[in-house]
């Protein structure tokens, strides 16, 4: 089943690479010390590549939003109120119990339903809450003069940074869960192959 158009795959690939660079360089800035550790690049290099990647990520994000506005792909991200919590519960139950009992997937993938309710919620939170917040706060840190001087007596730059690193952390956690859930396809490699070739391999255990 052809599920991922070229522009989605292209956006996803660029997004994945940039997010990885941003996580490594972001962690480096946060944890670089007098000693340098594995996976922590030097501060100056980290700042440079973090800034460059962030600018590209912003353009890539605009591309994603535009794509969702001007193509039908946007419909997969629309959350409907009806049965939202109930469906979420069904999906959670499937992941924690049902799939081990051999039950069928409660929301099988089809051209009208690319994401299950849990995926949809996490993708909306990641793409429409965390990513805009991290981009806006990131630009605030890149141009500190545009940040409000303070809020409730706390420096605006500190709040901006805490918001930025908190969103960065949530996106890192999301990435780990996202990569793991992508092994829950027909075979552990099916969903990875799908986002590269565009074709989804159907299975009762598809996520």
């Amino acid at each position: 089943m052809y599920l991922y158009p070229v522009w989605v795959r292209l956006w996803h690939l660029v997004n994945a690479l940039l997010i990885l660079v941003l996580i490594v360089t972001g962690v480096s800035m946060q944890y670089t010390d007098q000693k340098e550790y594995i996976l922590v690049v030097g501060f100056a290099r980290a700042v440079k590549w973090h800034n460059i990647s962030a600018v590209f990520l912003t353009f890539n994000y605009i591309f994603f939003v535009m794509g969702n506005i001007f193509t039908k792909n946007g419909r997969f991200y629309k959350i409907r109120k009806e049965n939202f919590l109930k469906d979420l519960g069904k999906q959670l139950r499937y992941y924690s119990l049902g799939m081990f009992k051999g039950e069928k997937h409660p929301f099988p993938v089809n051209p009208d339903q690319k994401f299950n309710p849990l995926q949809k919620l996490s993708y909306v939170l990641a793409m429409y809450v965390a990513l805009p917040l991290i981009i806006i706060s990131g630009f605030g840190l890149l141009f500190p003069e545009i940040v409000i001087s303070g809020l409730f007596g706390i420096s605006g730059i500190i709040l901006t940074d805490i918001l930025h690193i908190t969103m960065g952390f949530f996106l890192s956690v999301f990435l780990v869960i996202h990569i793991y859930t992508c092994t829950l396809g027909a075979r552990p490699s099916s969903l990875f192959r799908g986002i590269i070739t565009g074709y989804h391999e159907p299975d009762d255990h598809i996520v």
Partner: protein
Amino acid sequence: MKFLHARILTVIYLCLSAPFAFALSWSGLPAKDTGSYVSPFYEDNERCFKCHGQGKYKYSNDQLGTEINALMCTERITKREEFYISNHRSFGCTDCHSTDYGTFPHPGELRMELKYNCLDCHGGDDKYSSFNFETIDSDYRESIHFRLEEDGFTCWKCHNPHTYKISIRDSKNLKETILYDNAICLNCHSDFSRFQLLSDRDEINLMETHEWLPDQTNHFRNVRCIECHTRINDSLLVSHMVLSKDKAVKLCNECHSQNSMLMSTLYKFQSKEQRQDGFFNGIILNQSYVIGANRNEYLNILSIVIFAFVILIICVHIYFRLSGKAK
């Protein structure tokens, strides 16, 4: 959906703000009221200030029988408002200068008057022992500036005896201290007419020589030149061992790290006076924010716990998947 985003954003902001509001509520060091100071030598000093206190002065030419308005050389002007808030505000002019200056025109040989340096008054005096003048002197003798002493470099090149005030201990606003202290360096290093009095080097463009420094303006506003250009001396609040440019700090993580160098330099006095829990090097947060140095230890722990929990859940899930396949 837009409303939902706005609410989530507000909740995140408030949730993140609240725990730190208390930790960040430090109000700063008390400033001394120097504006009301009245010098016991005020009347005597006025005899000098009436000419040297501003750009214009007036004198009588007895031969012509006229009053002459003249401009005072800028090097010879000391403003009253600056002198009376300086460290030496309690002094009379003739405590340091010859009483012969009382005559006008001043005798020509007074130009050769021997000037005191800091240690002439402050050296070996218990009253000033906390300032460690002797250590300052030994540091200075190892500094790059000492090499210029033959060409006329003295303590006064940085510490104008008429206007200098110690700022790092008294300042309520560290930004003002930074501005004040950097102005001392820039007085020569960005004014070629003064710089060439002591050096044969070509004019230096500080913006160009610091081009490598990311976010240059922010750095110049938030740290002093001496943070990077001096060697730290633990027994001194302000290091006086100015290094040659090739020995200046250039590694970002000297400051942007948990063991931030700034705690031994710019924030040394405040770190002894006030502590702020929750953040590493939290005292910096009262005035500024340094990426890498100001991690929040609670958020650090929380992030590790959440991350470990996620990994644990994934491991348990993998275990059940594998054992399910085994069946």
